[in-house]
């Protein structure tokens, strides 16, 4: 209920109750008391929509990434140590797909809700990630708090699938002489077509996708990210598939998240 509806209901009920008791000539004091008690009984649990959340202090992805931009492997790269962002305005501008492996000037990358670290099959760096568990983002302040025996997960190219962009899927069909109607991009039971990519399987657990209709549910786990140099550490918590300033019915994709260095 909004405030307007709440007030409407209160007024309607009060008028109705007053008319009943006037009808039966119940004493004024008694009548008013009974009216108030009844109103309280009915409407005590009734609540209004209250916008009392505190302002969001985290970060917002600068743009939507992934298949909806027309590029399947549309990765947005971050250098967490310097704050530099690559491919900020469009896919494959500063770092083309494949070029990232030989570069050590990025620490983490996003394509939709899939995440790379500069490690394993994604990059030549010493990156990686571990899961620090549900919530408790503010708890992790010092590197000494990180579990010393943790098995850092590096990137692989055998576990994670990204969604084909429609344009690239059709291009793929043409190249392989496959029938368009036999191989639609989207299947109601299986979702859109996907292909393997290189990414971090631990960080892939930070968001769960179900549907259609597509529902993106963050795990709210906090993850520790090891930078490409293997020396610096950051913590990451994805809190939403949506930008906090999103319009109603926006399809999302600009993630809201927290990411800070652990000193």
């Amino acid at each position, binding site marked *: *209920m*909004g405030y307007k*509806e709440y007030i*409407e*209901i209160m007024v*309607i*009920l009060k008028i*109705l109750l007053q008319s*009943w008791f006037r*009808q*039966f000539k119940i004493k004024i004091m008694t009548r008013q008391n009974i009216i108030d008690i*009844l109103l309280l*009984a*009915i*409407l*005590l*649990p*009734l609540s209004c*929509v209250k*916008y*009392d*959340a*505190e302002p*969001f*202090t*985290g970060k917002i992805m600068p743009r939507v990434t992934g298949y909806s931009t027309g590029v399947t492997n549309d990765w947005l790269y971050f250098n967490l140590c310097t704050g530099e962002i690559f491919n900020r305005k469009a896919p494959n501008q500063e770092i083309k797909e494949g070029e990232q492996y030989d570069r050590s000037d990025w620490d983490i990358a996003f394509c939709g809700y899939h995440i790379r670290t500069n490690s394993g099959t994604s990059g030549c760096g010493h990156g990686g990630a571990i899961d620090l568990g549900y919530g408790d983002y503010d708890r992790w302040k010092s590197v000494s708090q990180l579990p010393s025996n943790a098995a850092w997960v590096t990137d692989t190219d055998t576990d994670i699938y990204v969604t084909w962009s*429609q344009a690239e899927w*059709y291009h793929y069909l043409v190249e392989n002489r*496959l029938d368009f*109607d*036999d*191989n*639609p*991009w*989207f*299947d*109601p*039971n*299986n979702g*859109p077509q996907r292909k393997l990519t290189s990414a971090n399987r631990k960080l892939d657990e930070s968001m*769960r*996708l*179900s549907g*259609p*209709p*597509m*529902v*993106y*549910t*963050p795990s709210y786990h906090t993850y520790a990210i090891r930078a490409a140099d293997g020396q610096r550490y950051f913590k990451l918590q994805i*809190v*939403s*598939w*949506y930008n*906090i300033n*999103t319009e*109603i*019915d926006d*399809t*999302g994709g600009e993630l809201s998240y927290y990411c800070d260095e652990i000193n």
Partner: protein
Amino acid sequence: MKGIILFCLFAATVETTLQAQEKIQIILLEKGTDNPLSGAIVACSANADMKNAGYATTDTRGVASFAAPDSSIYYRITLTGFMPLSGKTEKGMSQLTLYMQEDVIGLNEIVVTASRTPRPVKLSPVTTQVLSGKAMVDAGYGNLQQALQQETPGLNIQKVGFGNEISMQGLDARHVLFLMDGERMTGDMAGNLDYERFNLHAIDRIEIVKGASSTLYGSRASGAVINLITKKTAQPLVIDAGARYGQMNERNYPNPQKKDFLYMYEKNVDRPNLQSWVSAGFKSGDFISQTDVWYSESDGFYLYQTEGDKKVYTKDANPFLDKDVVIVSSLARPPMGVEGAEHVSVSQKLFFEPSENLKMQLYGTAFFMNSYDMVQDLVFTQSKDFTGGAKATYSLKNFFSATVSLHADYYDRFKRHERRDERRKVYASRIMQPRLTLASRCFEAHELILGVEHFTDELTSDRFVNRKMTSRALTETEYFLQDEWTVNDRLMLSAGARTNFSRQFGFMWMPKLAVKYSPFEHWSFRSSFSTGYRSPSIKELFFNWDHLGMFMIKGNEYLRPEKNRYVSFGAEYADDRLFINASLYGNFFRDKIEGVWRIYDMQYNFEYANLSRQDLLGGELLARWRILDCLSLNGTYSYVDVSEQGGVRVNTTSPHAATGGVEYRYRRKNYSLSAGFTASYMGRKRFDVQDRVYVEKEGRSRDAWFRCDLPAYALCNLTLSQTFLNKVKVTAGVNNLFDYKPKTLGSGLTAFNIPATAGLRGYVQVEFSIKN
């Protein structure tokens, strides 16, 4: 109802006249508790055939007074929910104490749905199942959906992507017409209304007529009509109020903080399960007022599946396969969210009945609901509905009565932001229906009804043209005529026809014929032939919605109305203790409208089309048995067989469904106890779902069907209630007693066919009653 009206007209006259005469007092008490029964209609006459009867109603002491003639008088007493009494007083008697017994079997309920005229259910030419509103509240049901599922054979409520989906006798919600006091409602999704709009505590009774009733009710009445008749007090003042607290389904966020990104979402999906209600009515002179208010909130929860999806592509449904192919997904299936909700409804009815010949009514309902789905997309859904109308009936003795009515329903749906105070309207639906009905008993043994109604349906949505809010409308004008002929004490015939004209679909006509034959005192046989139709909905005609480039949902402006023929035969045995009704039916559809997936333009398109035929054959059994005055049993069973099409079964109904219940009552003065157990059983479901499968020998994927197999389940409830001093009632109960939780959510889109239950949950309920 007729008695109440007659009382309104005669009571004052009778009492004034009798002041100067000797009087006889009839004191009416409830059998078992000796509680006085108020509001009962007492008819007295010097003749056994009750000609020129005088009427009075019992007051809060259960007393009705009449002039005492020199000879004995004959009386007949009726009260809703009790078995009628009749008899004769002794000459010179000044006081008579009588006891009425609760009508557990329910054969004396007055029903209107099957014939649009009030008559006792046992005399209705078409079988009508009646659920008493009081009995549903006594049974501890928290809402209408739960009550219907536990009490109605073959009615299934399952969870779907957009809310609840009702199906009955193998037909989905598009073929089940819900009415409130005989009037339509709007705001449906695939035929499903917001069932939260129905306030269980405002319902006097629910009448369910299965089969095609389009002759009287028009489009959509092709599978069943569920008519909710709301309360209308017959007493000077009645106020019932109550509150209910239920265990939460699932606690998702134990400690929401204002700094949380989804603070509002976290609070909303974990709302407590609370309800409160007030139902108040008064009768003063020619005026009757009835007001009902209901508030309810509930939490959202998830349903889980531990194993990966399993799809079986059978050779039967996919002739290009050499053998059945089984594909098991290695990925865990994400849990499915079941939304929570918060809603309030306020309804007001005013009746003005200044004379025997003139009755008028104004009514209106306001409904507000917030639906809190489990999707973390920073928006939730708000719904707002205003329903209202006016009716007036003028009667000229038995010659005819004319009823003119105007009914309207305005429904809006919004999406509301969870971080900013803004909302956007995404859906608006308006219906308006003026109607004129002429009824006549001018010809002996005949009840004639002639009606004309005009129906306007307008829908505004962002799913017609490029995501812009656009309106589409349909109008239909219909005439109907029915004659119910009581040939003799044993035989009754009902015949009728309806014509329909619309610019979109042209002219149609729908006939019906029903026969009731009662060769012996307790036996009745009914048979009927009726036709039904369903005009394509505005959505089915005009939808044109691109779902993120993934698929299109496309309406079809060339759809024709689907039509069906319904044939039934039933036998019924009924006495004061036992009621058994068995029936067989066939429901034969042609041009049935279904949504099908088709691939073209390089993508899937969900299109509506008139499919060829679908035949549904089935049987039903209803039984109630009052073993002892304090103990009663009831049970129902439903079987339906839906025809396959090319080896493919698209209908998701289980062939077998049953309900059962046992109720024990202990009563004494100023105290009563009631314990009840109800069970609802749904048999195994096996149906085919459209999909694609890769065929190795052909080296390509093909359209295919996979078989979905969902196990049988039963939901059982237990309730215990105690009433003190006839004023305070305390109820405690457990829903889903055996903690059933669906283990499989199905596969792919078939997740939409499981009961939305979080498992065993308890509740307590307190009710107060004030009578003046």
